[in-house]
């Protein structure tokens, strides 16, 4: 009785599966295809619209020195701002994530994770306004101090910007914006450390910090790299906050606190597009294509890094 019951159930299950399985397989395949098509569509659009700017004579491009000369400072500014942002936010975010996952009492950890998640929900234009009206004036004092005392460093050569609307300020604003992304993901990765690994370290006589270095960080490394890359993606593409904060002159310089600052691609598009016509539009699209390529390269490099490090660990 019982065995026949299961037998029929099994047959009916396999019967249903023959319809349901291909259906869901097709559904997921369609979803994956849509993603690829969307990406291909964007790439095709960017290429076709950017083409006139690529072939145009150099004196017709803004600045008059051709497309490469136009794009280079923007690419430089984009990478510099993103690098500054990550240099500030990545260590901070990893520290916050470790504090939440392994040091804070549960209630405090919940509160902090909630606040950090909230930071991610604030619209970027609000960060921009905060950057202009609050952060930049405050930082300008620090900048003049830096120019006076460590001005021998090329980074702080000055003369310090009076408004404080420099690439470093933009980097700080971007750091605040990327912090929640990186720390939220890192927190999840750190929380997934197997309890068995943590106890292995503790049972050997590891202190809490030694346990983190032994068990938590090695396990979480690839996850933290991925989290940082997502943060980098946000920093590279951020438009509004940078457009508001940065007072750009389009110069390629590592002087972080002066009035001469390179702009970023995204901010430049947002600022120039309303008044652009004809070939100028194509030039802006070409800069968009450059950003697209940069994001791609950065993501692939990060993936390669993660894959290589996990292979050398052999796990």
């Amino acid at each position, binding site marked *: 009785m019982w065995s026949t019951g299961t037998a029929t159930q099994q047959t009916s299950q396999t019967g249903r599966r023959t319809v349901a399985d291909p259906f869901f397989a097709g559904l997921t395949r369609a979803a994956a295809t849509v993603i690829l098509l969307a990406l291909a569509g964007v790439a095709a659009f960017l290429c076709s619209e950017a083409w006139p700017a690529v072939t145009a004579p150099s004196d017709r491009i803004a600045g008059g020195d051709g497309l490469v000369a136009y794009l280079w400072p923007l690419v430089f500014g984009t990478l510099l701002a993103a690098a500054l942002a990550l240099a500030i936010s990545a260590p901070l975010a990893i520290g916050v994530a470790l504090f939440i996952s392994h040091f804070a009492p*549960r209630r405090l950890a919940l509160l902090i994770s909630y606040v950090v998640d909230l930071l991610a929900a604030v619209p970027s234009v609000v960060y921009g306004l905060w950057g202009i009206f609050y952060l930049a004036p405050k930082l300008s004092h620090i900048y003049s101090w830096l120019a006076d005392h460590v001005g021998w460093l090329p980074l702080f050569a000055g003369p310090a910007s009076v408004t404080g609307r420099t690439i470093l300020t933009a980097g700080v604003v971007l750091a605040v914006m990327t912090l929640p992304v990186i720390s939220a993901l890192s927190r999840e990765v750190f929380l997934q450390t*197997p309890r*068995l*690994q*943590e*106890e*292995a*370290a*503790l*049972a*050997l*006589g*590891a*202190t809490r910090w*030694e346990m983190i270095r*032994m*068990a938590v960080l*090695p*396990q979480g*490394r690839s996850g933290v790299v991925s989290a940082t890359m997502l943060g980098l993606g946000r920093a590279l593409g951020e438009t509004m906050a940078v457009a508001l904060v940065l007072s750009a002159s389009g110069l390629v310089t590592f002087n972080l606190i002066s009035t001469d600052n390179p702009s970023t691609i995204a901010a430049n598009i947002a600022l120039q597009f309303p008044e652009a016509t004809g070939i100028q539009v194509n030039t802006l699209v070409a800069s968009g294509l450059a950003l697209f390529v940069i994001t791609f390269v950065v993501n692939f490099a990060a993936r390669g890094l993660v894959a290589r490090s996990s292979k050398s*660990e*052999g*796990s």
Partner: protein
Amino acid sequence: MAKTIDVSDLDIYYGSFKAVEDVTLTMASRSVTALIGPSGCGKSSFLRSLNRMHEVIPGARVEGKVIMDGRGLYDVDVDPVLVRRDIGMVFQRPNPFPTMSIADNVLAGKRLNGKRMNRAEAAEIVERALVSANLWNEVKDRLRKPGASLSGGQQQRLCIARALAVEPQVLLMDEPCSALDPISTTAIEDLIHTLKERYTIVIVTHNMQQAARVSDTTAFFNLAGAGRPGHLIESGSTPKIFSTPDNPATEAYISGRFG
């Protein structure tokens, strides 16, 4: 090397829940003490309280005395980190550090002591620990390979080597063979036999035959019902516990009538 552990009137708590009540037990040096009993009777909690691993669970605490070498392990001036360096532990499932090589796994505890080792010293420590754990012949040609590349039984012996490398007084084993096949289990049991000449060993096991095979002293834990604390019912020399136990509950458990 080996030291005796004296436990008296030990109560173990998880928050407000009392998991183990009023245990008094001596674990003699250079011998194997087996802790047996049904699931939930508190034998693992008891084992973890011996090297202060119990308290890494939030809310967990103990009351009572655990004395080794004349010192209370729960005295206020005792650092749990140092206790754990003296009392090593092997877990239910093998847990080598997956990102470390075999050699680095063995040295992990040694490196915590912050001592600088030169290459020759490190190699010697690795060899000695792996020989002690009866794993040297199997891995000596691939010490740089990741620890996770070994079989389950080899991983467990690697974990034993890792615990031995810091030269502990006592080795605690929490069902060390429950995730292993019979051949690996035999290897570990043989190892326990040789290790007891140098260490105090306390082992938790669900396998009665294993307790009978490896231990000199057996302690039987039981609990009156779900939600009630576990008690130490009876302890004594292993042959006696397995042939003529004093308590009828012990006999019932050992003969397989419950649990």
